[in-house]
């Protein structure tokens, strides 16, 4: 390999516990430790643990932070209360998606506000380069990339909060979904949030790079199963969540992706706002859909989606769903083929497999917690 891969502070643990390490966005990350299905099922039925330290963490300080962030993401930031976390998009001037991010409004021990933006590992450099020149002194805001100083782990599953609670000072049941707060975590200062990327309840923990190994081991000892990027992908796919580089790209706008909820156009301006005002009124662009395949052959990224033998779209992600025990896919199709129930086919290596459009998500948990 030409360049050395970045390592998270948990790299040695992964390597010594059977983690199959792969290059993911320039980071050496575990794709699985045992089997994807075992790690997936542990998340759906009990609790699992993901190292997500590779994700970019950008911190914003200063009274100008909310105004600045409000000018660069699709979702309103200025009315975000302390503790509130919102999913938002960063778009370019044409309305194309540069990244999908979480924006956190947090408070330090002294009651002072600061903000955090968690970005995809693959987009971190791009987003920093996009934001940096827009940080005029007038905004009175400082941006710092704290990705390497802080580590981040996700504890996910119906037992996640129960297993994490002994380590976390803050009572987790007082934390609403998509909320987060500073607290003590295994005696160290950190941030806990009721967020995740699996479709299950759970939390994400941010602690200092030097403290994370102890937190991770305590969670493993408590019974959470370490899970890799393979299960993270099958879980998010079942949950109908888009992944940047697959469902999202600069060639896709938020309305095509079905992410209207993350776009606030009224009485605001941000990069891409005017393009999105126009795009919202336009029709005819391919739309993101969920597809269930009749057979067991698995649709993969790039496979053509067919109607009556004609190509009407293509697959952006596909897998065999361990929970549904069916092959599932997300992709983009021309709008006349996007209605739920539409019978289509997917060209799986030269042979058409019948499929039909289903509502997203493919899987929805039955208990508490909805995205706000």
């Amino acid at each position: 390999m030409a360049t050395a891969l970045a390592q998270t502070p948990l790299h040695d643990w992964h390597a010594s516990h059977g983690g199959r390490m792969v290059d993911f966005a320039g980071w050496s990350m575990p794709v699985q430790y045992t089997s994807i299905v075992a790690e997936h099922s542990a998340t759906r039925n009990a609790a699992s643990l993901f190292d997500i330290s590779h994700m970019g963490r950008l911190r914003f300080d200063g009274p100008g932070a909310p105004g600045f962030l409000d000018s660069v993401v699709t979702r309103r930031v200025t009315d975000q209360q302390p503790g509130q976390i919102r999913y938002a998009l960063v778009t370019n001037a044409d309305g194309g998606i540069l990244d999908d991010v979480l924006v956190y409004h947090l408070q330090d021990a002294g009651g002072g506000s600061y903000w955090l933006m968690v970005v995809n590992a693959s987009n971190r450099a791009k987003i920093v380069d996009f934001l940096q020149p827009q940080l005029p002194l007038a905004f009175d805001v400082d941006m710092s990339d704290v990705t390497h100083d802080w580590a981040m782990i996700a504890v996910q599953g119906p037992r996640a909060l129960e297993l994490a609670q002994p380590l976390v000072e803050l009572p987790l049941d007082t934390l609403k979904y998509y909320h987060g707060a500073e607290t003590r975590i295994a005696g160290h200062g950190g941030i806990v949030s009721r967020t995740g990327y699996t479709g299950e309840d759970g939390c994400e923990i941010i602690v200092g790079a030097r403290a994370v190994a102890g937190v991770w081991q305590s969670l493993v000892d408590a019974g959470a199963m370490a899970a890799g990027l393979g299960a993270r992908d099958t879980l998010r796919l079942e949950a109908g969540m888009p992944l940047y580089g697959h469902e999202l790209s600069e060639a896709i706008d938020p309305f095509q992706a079905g992410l209207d909820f993350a776009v606030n156009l009224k009485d605001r301006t941000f990069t891409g706002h005017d393009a999105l005002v126009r795009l919202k009124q336009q029709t005819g662009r391919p739309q993101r859909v969920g597809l269930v395949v009749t057979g067991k052959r698995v649709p993969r990224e790039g496979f053509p989606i067919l109607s009556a033998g004609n190509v009407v779209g293509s697959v952006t992600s596909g897998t065999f769903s361990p929970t549904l025990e069916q092959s599932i896919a997300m992709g983009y199709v021309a709008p006349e083929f996007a209605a739920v129930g539409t019978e289509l086919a997917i060209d799986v290596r030269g042979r058409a497999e019948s499929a039909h459009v289903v509502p997203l998500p493919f899987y929805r948990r039955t208990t508490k917690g909805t995205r706000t």
Partner: protein
Amino acid sequence: MKPETLLFSKTHEWVHVETDSTGAKVATIGISAFALEALTDLVYIELPKVGRTLKTGEAFGEIESVKAVSDLYSPVDGAVVATHDSLANELESLPSDPYGNGWLVKIKLSDETALQELMDYAAYQKQCAEEGH
């Protein structure tokens, strides 16, 4: 069967050759434990129809896991005389007995020269060690 008694292809198929009652050579073909461990989470297998003739190196089926699909390549020349069709419904058991109940197809050899190209277990293990995980 013990893997030490088998021959292996570069593409991770194993081969066991026997002589049937008519004196013809029949090769039983499967996938190595190494390949199955790399795949994990099997979801689908497709095998050829009985009677199909195969050349060495020709794809005769596919095996799919949650994360990837692999073609299966014939390590020999000949005609398919039997396929292990029940495997499709018990794929999860394949990794536990890859060299026994994990057989995929039986091929009646039309030519034995391809066997010369196959590796013994020691040579195959060396290849696997070089590929790493």
